[in-house]
């Protein structure tokens, strides 16, 4: 065996697999540890690296804030350490990063932004019995696998579609705007499809007609004029949009160019319309566009403080996704505090039983997870671009500005 070891070591070195062994700090059930490692997985390179980088920075800031405030008290003031993973936007890399982070001693994971990567990471977490707190990832299916170690803070696609429909209807009633027919433009795939289905069910139950459904391929989309013209052919009151940043920006620009006689463009789970860079990117085309989405609480002082410091440190505006990563770290920290244990299985139970008040997002109540791991109080609020800024407009109790509806006067 010894002879072999030499050969094997040589091969291992040749393969370049040396190093990488992290310092494990898991003292299962122990009360006094120096540090607790949380693993984070986001797309830090590749086409989603922009948002991935912001999310990573949000998580880092949460860790720093908690450490500054004295760490985890019930663990003798143990400090948090964030071990950062890069999924490169690929499911298999996400999986191996998750395994690496766990083997390097992470007691919980956060991530990952993309649904397919999250699927893979969730199965790793499940098998390793390490809790995963999903900051952003929208597919319903992720939590439908019967996994008990996955938790999600944001609302899922179906609930966003349904509550988006309810918000639109309520806003129409509140402002006396008649909304009878809508046309829906969404990105092809599970995300766009399930938001649309849920919207349609909810809207049609209240007598709104979904006159047309137009899908486009996210992989190849550089002009939205055809899709918007097609949507307008059914003479809708409102065009509803679901998709990512570049494509939704194109849709807003096409609507602006066509200047149609509609009452609003209403995004649901749109990657663009409530992003703080959208008003500058779209200019005139952004004006008065509505967006139903989960959102950082624009009425909370704590959030305002975090956002100011984030911008000072990173030179970029802190978007909602980034706030969710911050929130995910807080969830884990609260569970650590609650359980006084760094055993991942005990930690899972603590997360599951958690009721975290004062969430950083505009939710219905404290963060609490149901048996599938979904945050039951997650919801959307409606925002609108007014005077070059994203404002919260509905429900009225969290509004920073009054809604303008009809959004266009033509």
């Amino acid at each position: 065996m010894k002879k072999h070891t030499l050969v094997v070591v040589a091969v291992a070195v040749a393969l370049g697999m040396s190093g990488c062994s992290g310092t494990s700090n898991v003292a299962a059930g122990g009360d006094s540890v120096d540090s607790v490692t949380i693993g984070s997985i986001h797309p830090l390179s590749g086409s989603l690296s922009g948002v991935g980088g912001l999310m990573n920075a949000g998580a880092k800031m949460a860790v720093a804030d908690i450490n500054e405030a004295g760490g985890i008290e019930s663990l003798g003031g143990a400090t948090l350490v964030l071990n950062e993973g890069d999924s490169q936007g690929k499911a298999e890399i996400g999986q191996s990063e998750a395994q690496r982070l766990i083997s390097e001693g992470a007691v919980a994971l956060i991530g990952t932004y993309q649904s397919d990567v999250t699927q893979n990471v969730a199965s790793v977490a499940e098998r390793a019995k390490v809790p995963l707190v999903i900051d952003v990832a929208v597919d319903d299916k992720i939590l439908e696998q019967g996994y008990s170690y996955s938790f999600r803070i944001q609302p899922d696609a179906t609930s966003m579609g349904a509550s988006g429909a309810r918000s639109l209807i309520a806003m129409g009633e509140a402002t006396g705007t008649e909304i009878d027919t809508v046309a829906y433009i969404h990105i092809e795939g599970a995300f766009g499809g399930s938001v649309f289905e849920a919207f349609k069910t909810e809207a049609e139950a209240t007598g709104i007609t979904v006159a047309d459904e137009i899908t486009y391929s996210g992989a190849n989309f550089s002009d939205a004029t055809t899709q918007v013209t097609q949507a307008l052919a059914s003479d809708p009151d409102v065009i509803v949009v679901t998709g990512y940043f570049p494509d939704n920006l194109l849709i807003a620009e096409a609507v602006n160019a066509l200047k149609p006689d509609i009452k609003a463009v209403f995004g649901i789970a749109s990657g663009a319309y409530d992003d703080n860079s959208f008003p500058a990117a779209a200019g005139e085309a952004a004006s008065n566009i509505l967006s139903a989405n989960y959102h950082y609480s624009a009425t909370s002082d704590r959030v305002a403080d975090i956002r100011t410091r984030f911008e000072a440190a990173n030179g970029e505006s802190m978007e909602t996704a980034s706030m969710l990563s911050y929130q995910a770290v807080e969830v884990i920290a609260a569970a650590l505090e609650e359980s006084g244990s760094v055993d991942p299985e005990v930690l899972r139970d603590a997360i599951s039983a958690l009721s975290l008040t004062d969430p950083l997002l505009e939710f219905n109540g404290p963060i609490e997870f149901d048996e599938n791991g979904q945050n039951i109080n997650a919801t959307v609020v409606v925002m609108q671009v007014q005077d070059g800024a994203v404002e919260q407009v509905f429900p009225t109790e969290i509004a920073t500005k009054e809604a303008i509806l009809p959004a266009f006067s033509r």
Partner: protein
Amino acid sequence: MLTTERGRIVLGLFAITVLGIAAVYLFGGKDSNLVTQTVVTGLLLGGVYVLVSLGLTLIFGVLGIVNFAQGAMLAMAMYLVYFMVSSAGINPYLAVVLSAPIMFGFGWLVQSTLMNRLITDVGHSRPLLVTLGLSLLISNTLLMIFGGRPLNVPSPYAGSVQILGAIADVPRIIAFVGAVIVAGGLIVILRKSPLGLAIRAVAANGTGASLVGVNVKRIYAMTFGLGAASVGVAGGLLAPFTSLVPSAGDQFTTLAFVIVVLGGLGSVPGALVGGIFIGLLQTVGSLFLPGSGPLLLVFGMFVLVLFLRPQGLFGANK
């Protein structure tokens, strides 16, 4: 012109396109304003595709390099324009004129330092891998410098005009006109200039050209440079209506290959006609097929062209 095979092909394709559009008007069951809008949008999208494909038809057609970095080079040109506009505050269309020579230099450098070492290869795998590496290198360098958040280049001529009752975005019209100008410029260079003569000689017969005293490697470097300069213009003209992220060019890479093969390797008029045709096919197709359906149509047609007329519309018969 009509007596040549090429003339017949142009005429045939034109007839197919016109008949196709007419059929959509008459039997498509769509509102005629919608169809007009779609055709206008399709033409303008075609202009974008032409811009992206012109550089590739030189690089792929003359040098035989399956240039995987085409999209990344496009993004690089866009960021170049962004950098000039945001730091020096110059007009983006002036920045295009400046970015073209910079991209020429970049292309020349790539060919003379890297690709020229591989020209003795019979296979295609090594040039392909080098351009793949190059594409990763360019997009990640852009990521390191500019970050991954979407940036934008404001166009000084933002707005739209009416054409036959359809709306057309002014920056896209400029891009379309730019595509035609670049195509015309490349045709003039290839047909009239000594460089063009040398490029055509090398493309037709590298060994023969070197025997009569052409410095083949130098011509290769100039060709890649010329292709990169076209990409430079394309990036600049596309930047005003694109969300600028390091991967912004990637979606065009595959389609550019389709167009270049459709038009015929190395054929500038082929890229022009092919690009517009694909733009129209995709946009009109999206009236009837949801989601990625039109893309499937494009690839299906691509395979048919490969099987039935692999030299492309404008390629010489082999």
